[in-house]
């Protein structure tokens, strides 16, 4: 009540409005226009997300401190964490829990932020209310998507960076976290940002098409689960598979090629003189080593052929995958703007 009774009731109401603006502006930074409306409408969701992110960051920073203290205590890396697995398990569990939480972000935000973002307005008729004001609905759509994207980018970039920082001391330990697993791949670098933006924008589009909040949330959930499955099955094909071959036979102790540390081995097979590949179970039915050697010779096996992805490709793979997701996101945004011109009421 007070802000309105304080407003001077002059004949020129514009003056009154200006006064209100200046007095509020001196008090604190002030959102205006469409930004104010969108922030006000979704402030509960935005503050929840920002608050949860701050708490998560604080917890991760604390956990990292604990882990580093432990590692210093045992003299890591001089002493590997493998030797003290008992003691390290707690820190690893904490990291896994954080990773699980980070992996849930795209689906959570897609369902609870993306799907209702416009579906709610279409269902309650408030889209009509906004359309009846003097600003264009393109501006409304742009502000909604822009502000939501800003919150998502700030939160996911921060969480991704902090988690990466936590992981960095033990990055070389594949037993702690395998870099190709979604625990590491989907929670560091640009992937959380890209996955979350894509999920939220997809949720918005589903909401705009279905125009019902609850249905949009359910359909978005189903869709995003499928997206996660497809994504994790595509991750390995984002890299350039490197094949290393040997010609020192396959029986000897050191015949297997040495791969760079933390390389992810995709496939290994026997290589024959003619360049053909045979499964490594070839001749495994032989009764003795001599028989096996004879059998291998008969098949013409001369060495190993191993396909792998070195960890040095991780960053490139993440950016490649993220750019595909960014492109898809941009496509959905274009659809939203075209659709929105006609149907956004």
């Amino acid at each position, binding site marked *: 009540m007070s802000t*309105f009774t304080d*407003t001077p009731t002059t004949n020129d109401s514009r003056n009154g409005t200006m006064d209100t603006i200046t007095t509020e502006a001196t008090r604190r930074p002030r959102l205006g226009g*469409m930004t104010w409306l969108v922030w006000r409408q979704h402030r509960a969701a935005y503050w929840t997300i920002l608050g949860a992110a701050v708490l998560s960051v604080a917890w991760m920073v604390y956990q990292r401190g604990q882990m580093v203290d432990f590692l210093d205590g045992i003299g890591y890396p001089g002493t590997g964490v493998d030797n003290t697995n008992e003691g390290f398990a707690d820190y690893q569990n904490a990291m896994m829990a954080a990773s699980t939480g980070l992996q849930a972000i795209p689906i959570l935000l897609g369902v609870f932020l993306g799907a209702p973002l416009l579906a709610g307005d279409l269902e309650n008729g408030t889209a*009509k*209310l906004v*359309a009846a*004001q*003097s600003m*264009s609905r393109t501006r409304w759509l742009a502000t909604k998507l822009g502000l939501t994207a800003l919150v998502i980018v700030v939160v996911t970039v921060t969480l991704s960076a902090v988690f990466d920082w936590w992981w960095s001391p033990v990055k070389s330990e594949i037993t702690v976290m395998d870099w190709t697993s979604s625990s590491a791949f989907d929670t560091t670098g640009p992937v959380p940002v890209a996955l979350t933006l894509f999920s939220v924008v997809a949720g918005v589009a589903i909401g705009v098409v279905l125009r019902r909040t609850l249905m949009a949330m359910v359909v978005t959930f189903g869709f995003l689960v499928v997206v996660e499955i497809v994504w994790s099955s595509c991750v390995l094909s984002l890299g350039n598979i490197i094949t290393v071959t040997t010609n020192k036979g396959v029986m000897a102790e050191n015949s297997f090629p040495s791969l760079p540390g933390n390389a992810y081995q995709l496939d290994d097979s026997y290589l024959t003189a003619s360049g053909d590949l045979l499964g490594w179970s070839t001749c495994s039915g032989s009764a003795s080593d001599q028989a096996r050697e004879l059998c291998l010779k008969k098949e013409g096996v001369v060495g190993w052929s191993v396909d792998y992805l070195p960890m040095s490709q991780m960053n490139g793979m993440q950016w490649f995958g993220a750019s595909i997701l960014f492109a898809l996101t941009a496509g959905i945004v274009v659809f939203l703007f075209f659709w929105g011109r006609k149907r956004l009421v």
Partner: protein
Amino acid sequence: MSDGMYTGEPALEAYGLGMRYRRGWALRDCSFRLPAGRICGLVGPNGAGKTTLLSIAAHVLEPTHGSISLFGEAPGSVESGRRTAFLAQEKPLFKRFTVAETLRLGRELNPGWDQRAAEEIVRAGNVPFEAKINTLSGGQRTRVAIALAFGKRPELLLLDEPMSDLDPVVRHELMGTLLAEAAERGTTVLMSTHVLAELENVCDYLVVVSGGGVRLAGDVDELMSVHTLVTGAKEGEGMPAALGHHTLVEARTSGRQFTALIRPEGPVTGPWETDAPNMEELLLAYLRSPEAPPLITPTAQVQGHGQAHGAGAVAA
């Protein structure tokens, strides 16, 4: 009177406006003109296309046929968006906003916002500014929605069944507010309703849509003056032959009496009582007889622009 209105700026002109859904036509071949400064009642049975017509004018829907112009501009243009305010039937408001925040919404999104006018409408109903919208009664909510529409200082106010869910006292009070505001500013109002009693003493202009087309449009005074209500003793079936050369809108019989609403083409002579119809009788007659010949008075006719008639010419 009507000659003066010809030259005045039309607030709204519809040219062969049509809306076709997969299920069928919601509005068909609707052409009329609303001069600026009028309070116009938009009347029709349920499903006649009133909401569709207002939604097209408010740029909420895109027509499939024909076009509409507001002060000479297409709906959705910056200019018409600024000069027009729309109050949808369900009176959508953000439920978690307070009244003050709802008015702030109007202030933030409209360059010509009149905070004082909006606050006065709210204050006149003793609606607390700090109350959340979802705690308000239907009448209070409608009042806030009206305040939001008026605060925009529109030149054309489109109201879809503004009072449909209010009790008679609140309805009367709000209608008073509405008319006083409109009269003070010279706002043109296009208001749909199916409560005919709401229109008497409120509207000075009428548009009746039924069966998808415009049945009646024009000045209330002019429409009333060209119709006559004839009452007399029934002679056999149907209309007395002596009335045959007048344009018949509707004839009804009860017992030995008949009542007919006609548009006299000359002096009405015969053993009948003639009377001027009231607005409700006039509207009911047109609503009950969709096959009656339509009447669109000259002030309500759209002219020129090369696209006035026919639905085909206006796809562009």
